[in-house]
């Protein structure tokens, strides 16, 4: 549920980073926070446990600049990945406008990725949203481990497991090293901005033009 303020010419949207426990959702947000200038980002809030797991969510507001005369503000949230935190995940999904699914490239995490994607489908359905209808991108995280001692999944296998039906944009990434993080963010932000403007602004084109003439 985005919030459109015609008076302040501002659109606020909510993007949620979803995925199994320890796949790197928080690391994505921390990397974004560390690389973005202070004037376009707000405070990052983390509700986590001492064991480094997200207990409730991480939160990072960003200014994306202007689209069609409107400032776009997005709020990034992560969910706790561990299976038993489902009630909390549902709370964070409330009012979501776009989802980044972060998948773990470790071979041993293959099942967890698939379970988490199914859990996303179920939780979105409870919110009244079909996964096919919401802006979604997939990130294959931890690609920096390729060629190391830990076996990782080939991208084709991950695509087959998670994206064969959805066919959404997907990005290999390493949230620790930073590659693929901004590509993912850019893709989801664009998709959300497009979706919100299609949903809302198209029906109010006259208001918009009137506002711009003022």
């Amino acid at each position, binding site marked *: 549920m985005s919030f459109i*303020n015609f008076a302040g010419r501002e659109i606020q949207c*909510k993007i949620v980073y979803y995925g199994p426990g320890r796949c790197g959702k928080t690391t994505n947000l921390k990397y974004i926070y560390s690389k973005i200038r202070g004037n376009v980002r707000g405070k990052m*809030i983390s509700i986590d446990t001492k064991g480094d797991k997200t207990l409730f969510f991480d*939160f990072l*507001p960003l200014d994306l600049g202007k689209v069609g005369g409107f400032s776009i503000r997005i*709020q990034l949230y992560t969910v706790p990945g561990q299976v038993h935190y489902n009630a909390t995940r549902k709370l964070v999904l409330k*009012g979501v406008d776009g989802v980044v699914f972060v998948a773990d490239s470790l071979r041993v995490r293959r099942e967890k990725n698939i379970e988490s994607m199914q859990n996303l489908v179920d939780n979105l359905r409870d919110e009244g949203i079909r996964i096919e209808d919401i802006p979604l991108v997939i990130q294959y995280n931890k690609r920096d481990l390729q060629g190391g001692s830990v076996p990782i999944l080939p991208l084709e296998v991950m695509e087959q497991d998670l994206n064969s039906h959805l066919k959404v944009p997907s990005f290999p990434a390493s949230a620790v090293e930073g590659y693929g993080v901004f590509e993912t963010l850019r893709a989801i932000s664009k998709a959300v901005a497009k979706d919100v403007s299609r949903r809302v602004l198209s029906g109010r084109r006259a208001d918009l033009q009137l506002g711009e003439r003022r």
Partner: protein
Amino acid sequence: MDIVLMQEDLDRIESSLSRILEKSGAHCILLIDRSGQLISACGDKPPEDTVALAALTAANFGATAAIARMLGERDFSLLFHKGKEENIHFSSFGEDFLLVTLFNNDASLGLVRLHVEKAVRELSQIFENVFRK
């Protein structure tokens, strides 16, 4: 569902919020939705903090609603946290909205509640019109 507010809606909302500030002695008031989006703020908290406050208070409310359901209640429509010097009062209205009032020990809880209740009636009316458009 999106919330789309025009200038006249926001003017009415802001005047309702600033009336609570004037009359109750509270020093900051936020109107947010349950997904954590800040809709309007009035008072002396810096904007950077209000965005985070909105996210955290919506989460707090969501968590408490889950407790309410375990007790057979649908929701707790009112929450109050008392600190040594700062206090915070939450009131939910409609399906989607929360009014968050911050006040210190110079203001009385009773007065805050009274004026919040009045404002909630006004705001419910405003949003009814917004959704009817």
